[in-house]
C-alpha cells in the first residue's frame, strides 16, 4: 500500500486567490445584507463579511469561504467549474428565451354577457353584431402561426369577451389544431377562460373528448362576486358555482381552476375570499392585484388602492393561509408559490407574466378577433384604448417570423431585460423577478420604467422580501418548500 497524501496538500491556500462571480445585494432591516448570485443562490452576510468577500480577504478554507464558493459567489483554482455551473443555471432559469412561444391566446369573441366594471377588456354587448367574433379564415391563419413556433409545448387559450358565445369557432379551432398536430406532434393543451354562465353538457362533452381545461373567475363570496361581476339576473355567482361543479362532474377536479381579481371591495375581504375558495374545494387561490387597463382605468378602480395597502392585506391573509396548511389542510397561494419556486428551485418556472426579458411575445401571442396580433392580453386592451404600440402584426400578412422579429416586440424585449435595465441590474431580487413592460409603458411611458416609481416593483420587493422572511421560520419554510416542489 502506498502512502496517502495529507489533507493539507489539497487545500485552496496552496494554490491561488479567489475571484468573484456576479452577485447583487440588498440591506435588510436587521442591518445585515442579503446577497444573491446571478443564478439566484443566496446568503445573508454582515457588513464585515460582505466587505471581506468583495475585497478578496476571505480566509481560504474557512466555513464562510467554503459556503460562498459552494453557492457560486466565488471561484478558485479548485472550483473553476463554478463559472460553467453558474451559466448553466442561469440558462436553465431563463429557458423561455429559447423555448419561444408556447401560450397562444385566441380572442374568439369580444361579446360578453357580463359587464364587470374592472374588465380589462373593452367587451361588447352580447347582442352586438358578429363583427366582434373571429372568423374561420382568421383562425386558420392564427393556427399556421401557432404551429410555426418551435416550442415543444403549445397551449391554446380561448378568451373573450366570453369565448363560449362563439362555441362553433372554438370547436373548429380545436379540431383543426388536433388535425395539424398529427403532423407537428407537439404537447398540445387547450384551456377556455369562461365565466361559465353558458356552460352546458354539450360543451362539456366536447371538452372531455379533447381534454380541454376550464379556467373561470370567482371573486369571492356571493355578494362580493355579484357586486364585482354584474350580469342580467344578478346571478353570476350562482351560475359560476353551478358551472364549476358541472365541469368537475364531467372533467374531473383538476381540470377546473378559478382566478380572482382584487376590486376595491375585495381588498378588505381577502379572508372571506380564501374561505370561499376553500369551501368550493379549490386547492389554492391566486391573489391578483388589478391591472391598469381597459375598464379598470375608466372606472378608476385601478387607482382605488395603493400597492402598500394590497401588500398589507396580502401578508395578513397569507398568514391565515399558512395556518390552514399547518393545521394539515394543504392550500396554496399561487403567487407566493411562484416566488418560492423562483427562490428555491434551480429549474425554469414558466409563468408568462413574470419573466425578464418579458414573456410577452417570447412566450405568448394573443390573436385578436380581428386578426391583429399582440404580445400580451394587455396589448389588445391598450389597443382598444387607442394605444397600438403593443400590436406586433396582423395575421393578414405576417408570419411567425415577422411577428417574433417585429420592431414592437424587439422594443419590449430590449427594455425588459433586467441585466441591462438601469434600475434592475443591481437588484438582489432580479433572479426571482420579471419585468411587466406593458404596465411601465402605461404608467411611465416607456417599457423599462423607473422602478423607484413603479407599483410593480414595490409589489415584487414586498412579496419576495416577505417570502424570504417566511423561509426563516422552519414551519413556514416546510410549507413553502411543499408549494414550490409539489405543485406544477
Amino acid at each position: 500500500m502506498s502512502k496517502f497524501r495529507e489533507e493539507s496538500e489539497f487545500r485552496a491556500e496552496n494554490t491561488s486567490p479567489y475571484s468573484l462571480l456576479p452577485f447583487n445585494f440588498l440591506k435588510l432591516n436587521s442591518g445585515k445584507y442579503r446577497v444573491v448570485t446571478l443564478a439566484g443562490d443566496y446568503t445573508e452576510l454582515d457588513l464585515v463579511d460582505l466587505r471581506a468577500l468583495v475585497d478578496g480577504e476571505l480566509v481560504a478554507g474557512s466555513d464562510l469561504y467554503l459556503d460562498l464558493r459552494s453557492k457560486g459567489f466565488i471561484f478558485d483554482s479548485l472550483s473553476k467549474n463554478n463559472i460553467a455551473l453558474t451559466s448553466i443555471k442561469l440558462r436553465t432559469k431563463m429557458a423561455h428565451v429559447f423555448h419561444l412561444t408556447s401560450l397562444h391566446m385566441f380572442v374568439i369573441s369580444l361579446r360578453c354577457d357580463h359587464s364587470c366594471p374592472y374588465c380589462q377588456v373593452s367587451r361588447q354587448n352580447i347582442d352586438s353584431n358578429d363583427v366582434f367574433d373571429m372568423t374561420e379564415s382568421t383562425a386558420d391563419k392564427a393556427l399556421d402561426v401557432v404551429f410555426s413556433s418551435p416550442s415543444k409545448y403549445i397551449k391554446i387559450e380561448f378568451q373573450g369577451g366570453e369565448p363560449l358565445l362563439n362555441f362553433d369557432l372554438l370547436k373548429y379551432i380545436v379540431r383543426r389544431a388536433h388535425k395539424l398536430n398529427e403532423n407537428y406532434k407537439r404537447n398540445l393543451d387547450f384551456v377556455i377562460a369562461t365565466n361559465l354562465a353558458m356552460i352546458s353538457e354539450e360543451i362539456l362533452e366536447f371538452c372531455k373528448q379533447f381534454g380541454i381545461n376550464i379556467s373561470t373567475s370567482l371573486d369571492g363570496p356571493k355578494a362580493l362576486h355579484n357586486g364585482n361581476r354584474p350580469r342580467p339576473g344578478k346571478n353570476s355567482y350562482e351560475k359560476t358555482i353551478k358551472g364549476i361543479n358541472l365541469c368537475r362532474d364531467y372533467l374531473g377536479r383538476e381540470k377546473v381552476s378559478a382566478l380572482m381579481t382584487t376590486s376595491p371591495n375585495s381588498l378588505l375581504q381577502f379572508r372571506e375570499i380564501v374561505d370561499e375558495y376553500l369551501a368550493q374545494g379549490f386547492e389554492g387561490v391566486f391573489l391578483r392585484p388589478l391591472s391598469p387597463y381597459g375598464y379598470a382605468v375608466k372606472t378608476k378602480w385601478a387607482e382605488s388602492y395603493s400597492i402598500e395597502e394590497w401588500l398589507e392585506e396580502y401578508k395578513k391573509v397569507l398568514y391565515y393561509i399558512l395556518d390552514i396548511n399547518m393545521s394539515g389542510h394543504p392550500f396554496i397561494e399561487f403567487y407566493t408559490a411562484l416566488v418560492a419556486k423562483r427562490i428555491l428551485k434551480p429549474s425554469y418556472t414558466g409563468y408568462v407574466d413574470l419573466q425578464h426579458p418579458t414573456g410577452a411575445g417570447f412566450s405568448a401571442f394573443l390573436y385578436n378577433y380581428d386578426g391583429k396580433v399582440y404580445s400580451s392580453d394587455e396589448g389588445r386592451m391598450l389597443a382598444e384604448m387607442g394605444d397600438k404600440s403593443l400590436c406586433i402584426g396582423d395575421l393578414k400578412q405576417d408570419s411567425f417570423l415577422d411577428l417574433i422579429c417585429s420592431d414592437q416586440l424587439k422594443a419590449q424585449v430590449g427594455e425588459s431585460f433586467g441585466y441591462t435595465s438601469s434600475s434592475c441590474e443591481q437588484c438582489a431580487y432580479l433572479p426571482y423577478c420579471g419585468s411587466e413592460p406593458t404596465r411601465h409603458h402605461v404608467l411611465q411611458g416607456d417599457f423599462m420604467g423607473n422602478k423607484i416609481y413603479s407599483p410593480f416593483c414595490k409589489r415584487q420587493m414586498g412579496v419576495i422580501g416577505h417570502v424570504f422572511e417566511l423561509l426563516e421560520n422552519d414551519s413556514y419554510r416546510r410549507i413553502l418548500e411543499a408549494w414550490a416542489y409539489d405543485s406544477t
Partner: protein
Amino acid sequence: MIPLNGKILLSTLPKIGKDKVIRLSNNQNMPLPLRKSEVFILSGREVPSGFWGYITFNDQSQEYDAPDVPLLCLNSEMSHLTDGDIIRVSNDSKRVRVLYRKQSQHNFILLTEQCNHYCLMCSQPPKTQDDSYLVENTKDVLRLASRGSDEIGFTGGEPTLLGDDFINLVRLAESYLPETALHVLSNGRAFGDLEYARKLAEVRHHDLMIGIPIYSDAPEIHNYVVQSDNALDETVRGLINLSRFSIPIEIRIVLHNVTKDRLLNLAQFVSRYLPFVSQVAFMGLEMVGFARANKDLLWVEPDSYSSQLTEAVEFLSVRNISTSVYNLQLCLMPKALWPFMKKAISDWKNVYEPECNECDVRDKCGGFFSSHIYKKPINIRPVKL
C-alpha cells in the same frame, strides 16, 4: 456470509492453459448438445453423461465410482453454488471465484482493479498490474448469465479506465441481458470528455444507471478523500455531460469522519447544480480494504452525525430527489430517517449481532457488513417498539 472465493481441493478438469469461466447446472435432463459447455453439480449418485465437468463439495468425491469424469471438488463452504451460477476456475487449478449468482440481487462484476482514485476508505484497493483478463471474464459472464436477472452491476477499480472496452461491455450487457438493469460504479471523470459520454449514450442501454461518488461540496475535501487533484471539478463536468444525454445518475456519499461535517452543504450543492440526478445514496462505511488501514482517521460513531444526515436527507427528499440511506442500523438513527433506510448489504456479507435477536425491527434493518467486527458501533441496542 456467503464466501465468493474458494479453494479447489481436487481438479481433474481438462487444462485449457488459462482461466476458465464456466456455468453450473443441476439439470440432469439437459439436452446432450448443451452439456458440453456446462458443469454439472453432483448431488446424488446420479452422474449424467456428457457434461464438460462435474462439481462436488468437500470429499464426497470418494463416494462416486466414476474416477474418469472430469471433476472439480470444492470446499463445502462453496456448496451454496447452484444452477445458473457462473464461476472462474484459475489456470493453476487452485482457486475458484464466483462471478455471478443467479439467485442474488447483488451481482457486481469487477471490470478492472486499476483506478485513478485512491480513496481513503476504498473497500477494493486498486492494483496496478495488467488485469485485462477481467474484460474477457466479463464478456463470458454476460454471455452466460441468465436473462431473468433484475439487475447486474459493473464495478472496479474505475471501469472507464478501460476506455472503449467499457463502452463495449455496456453494449454486450444490453445485447445479452435486454431485460436486466445495469448499475455502473464510476467516478465519472472520464465523462468530462463529451465524446466519451456520447459513446455511452449511443449504446442506448434500456436501463442504465451510473453511480458516482461525491464526498463533499468542498473540492479540497472531496479531492483529499479520493486522493486526487481536480477530482471534484472533473467529476462534476462528467455529471453534466451525462445529463446532456439523459443518462440516469446516482450520487453516492460514503459517511465517515472526513465527510460527515458538510452533508447539508453537499445536499444543497446537489440540488443547486445537479438537480437532474435520479437518486442520492448515503452509505455507511464498510470496514474493509483501506478503511481498515485508515480506521483512526475515518471512524466515527454513526449516531453522532445522525441529525446532520437527517437534515440532508430531508432537504433532498422535499426537493423530489429520491434519497436513500444504506449500511446503517435503525437503532442508531432517528425514526424520521427510517423510511429512507434501505436493507441492501449484499447477501453474501450481511450479518447481525446477538443484540439484534431481541430487536423489534430486525427484519426491517439492514444489519451489518461482516467486516464490522473490526469496528462495531458502541450504541447498538435492540429497538423496542
